[in-house]
């Protein structure tokens, strides 16, 4: 029997993550409303272009600072635990082989995908197994960046009780900048990811029902 394109554990953790990420991002932005600057008092970080810009209400969750903090800290553990289940499954099941970027298999394919998307090539490269090279590269980069959101969040939550983690990230205010930067990266990914899924609705069905591996695809 063919392996499903998206095994059950991947499907469940994917959709749980979608909901949890929205909750974490929305409540995080409502927390940012209370002090929409980066850098300690009196020493704003020069690299941050949005000093003083309040996040739009449509993107926030929690209504006010205490409400948003409760949402954020209530769902933070679920967000991290869900990600941990996904990571353990990815490794233990061997699924990482057909999902994560492997330069030998994917580098050339990823480059050809970029050329096609930029209209510099007429034919798109064929997917290798489940994904094309550019998908694998993107998913892998996101998986590398995302844990930073949890680590920087822990440093913000307990800067005194977790002194080594906080120092490793450059201190409380740098950790806060990292926390927001990771959100920006994940948000950019989500926008492109949702757009691509809508352009290829079959992936949406696969991620919900499991689907079958494409005929003739080499895993």
């Amino acid at each position, binding site marked *: 029997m063919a392996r499903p394109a998206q095994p059950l554990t991947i499907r469940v953790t994917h959709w749980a993550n979608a909901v949890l990420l929205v909750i974490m991002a929305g409540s995080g932005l409502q927390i940012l409303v209370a002090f929409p600057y980066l850098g*300690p008092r009196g020493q704003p970080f020069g690299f941050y272009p949005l000093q003083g810009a309040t996040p739009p209400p449509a993107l926030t969750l929690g209504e006010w600072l205490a409400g948003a903090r409760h949402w954020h800290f*209530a769902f933070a553990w679920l967000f991290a635990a869900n990600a941990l289940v996904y990571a353990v499954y990815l490794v233990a099941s061997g699924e990482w082989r057909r999902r994560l970027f492997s330069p030998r298999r994917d580098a050339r394919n990823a480059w050809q995908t970029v050329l096609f998307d930029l209209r510099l090539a007429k034919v798109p490269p064929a997917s290798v197994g489940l994904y094309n090279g550019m998908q694998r590269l993107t998913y892998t980069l996101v998986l590398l960046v995302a844990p930073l959101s949890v680590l920087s969040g822990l440093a913000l*939550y307990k800067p005194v009780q977790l002194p080594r983690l906080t120092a490793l990230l450059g201190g409380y205010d740098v950790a806060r900048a990292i926390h927001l930067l990771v959100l920006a990266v994940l948000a950019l990914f989500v926008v492109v990811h949702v757009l691509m899924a809508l352009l290829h609705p079959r992936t949406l069905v696969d991620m919900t029902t499991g689907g079958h591996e494409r005929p003739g695809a080499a895993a």
Partner: protein
Amino acid sequence: MTFLTPRTRRGFLAEGLGSLGLVALGALACDSARPQVGFLGLMERVNERLERALFDPRRLAPELPREDETDPALFPQYRIGPDFPEEPVGWALSVGGLVARPLTLSLEALRGMPSTRLRVRHHCVEGWSAVAAWEGVRLSEIARLAGADRRARYVEFRSFEPGYYSSWDLESALHPQTVLAYGMNGAPLMTEYGAPLRLYSAIKLGYKMVKYLSAVNFLPVRTGGYWENQGYEWFAGV
């Protein structure tokens, strides 16, 4: 969309509706206006257990060099009322509750006690941090002088600003970097920062540090606080 067979379409709809139902149930149990009840309140209590387990009463926040001090003009001033409250005539701190020796301490008496200085990072619930140097008497010293009872697991700090108070877990209150401060940045504490006496600590968020202190009570129960009763977390350790 020819690839959607009736069977997969049914499965797609069923799983989609199932997930939406779960999310709706979860969201119903969360009320942003009342974050201390329902699922949000339950998780605050879970988090408090984790925070207490993580809290090490001997771990000190790093002492910072003088260069790290925030420009005093930029260290925020907060008050809960429309005006900064005025110091009552004949002000003195009362220490009571479950203690062997209730005390009334004038500012001179407090200044005469062993003093502690700390220059540490201040973490505000709003997200900003700042640095100032503080001078005062450790709360552990007050507890020793008054003979605080073992049954007192909480400490309540009251202000002469009406309605302003907070209660703390005993372990955080007795931390060596928790002080009743009468000096800031090498000068007497100013009205804008809580004169004549305020609570200062390296291990709590700023809103736990009651200004314009009038009383310290060692209690067997927690009594909430001005910010806490509005919905902010009670433990609020950093």
